[in-house]
């Protein structure tokens, strides 16, 4: 079969026409129907957004509980005493954490007592 014969055979046919409903699907989609979106999805973008949110959240959390928080001045004697009790290479760090939690708890309790006292006195 020569090229010309093959081409002549092809030209006896042609690709089929689109269905009549295609134009309507494009220009008059049913109400509530949004044009069909591309099937491409972006799972990596969703994952990256989730990762970013988690990172930001953890960072904020770490700042909130940061040892560098300036509102607590550690009782050095208490820290030393606790560190001596704990012992070991990280005793100082662990002691600072424990004492900081203790002092915050004490401060919170003090504040609660003050609030309660003010409430009991009431307005004069």
């Amino acid at each position, binding site marked *: *079969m020569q*090229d010309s014969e*093959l*081409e002549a*055979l*092809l*030209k*006896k*046919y*042609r*690709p*089929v*026409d*689109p*269905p009549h409903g*295609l*134009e309507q*699907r*494009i*220009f008059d989609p049913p109400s509530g129907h949004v*044009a*069909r979106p*591309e*099937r*491409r999805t972006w799972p990596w973008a969703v994952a990256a957004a989730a990762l970013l949110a988690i990172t930001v959240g953890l960072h904020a959390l770490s700042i909130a509980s940061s040892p560098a928080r300036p509102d607590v001045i550690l009782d050095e004697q208490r820290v030393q005493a606790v560190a001596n009790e704990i012992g070991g290479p990280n005793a100082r760090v662990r002691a600072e954490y424990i004492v900081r939690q203790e002092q915050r708890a004490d401060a919170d309790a003090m504040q609660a007592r003050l609030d309660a006292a003010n409430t009991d006195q009431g307005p004069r």
Partner: protein
Amino acid sequence: MGEAADGDRRRFVAGVYRQSGPQLYRYALMILADRGDAEDVVQQVFASVLSKPALPKMLDPTAYLRTAVRNAAYSLLRRRRTARAADEPILEPVAGGCSPVEQAVLQRALRELPPEQREVVHLHVYEGMTFQEVATATGESINTVAARYRYALDRMRKLLTSIS
């Protein structure tokens, strides 16, 4: 103001569809060899144009949309993982002396071609483009286009001979 512009855009795109929509559908069909996928691609391309706040610059709307259809079709092919049903017709007779058997054999031979070769056959045989025009439309070199056409005819010839 916005609604008027939107209406103008829709009328313009509708005119482009009436002029070139069937041609673009047949192009997508010959790349994809699947009627449902060809419908999806054409719908996606026109819907994308309609959804833009302003029409893209289209000196030649048909050429612009042909490129968009081509990109969407190959993008779909890359994502497509399952073979499509080969029982639906992708060709229809336009001349006398056709037979269902001949049509089925020709369709099967076309389906056996890689999409890039089917595309070149379509643009050259059915759209009447020269190899240079096909090269411009597809962004390939003219040598690549000519080679694809050569491979396509050789392969079809072998398939048709073996089937016959």
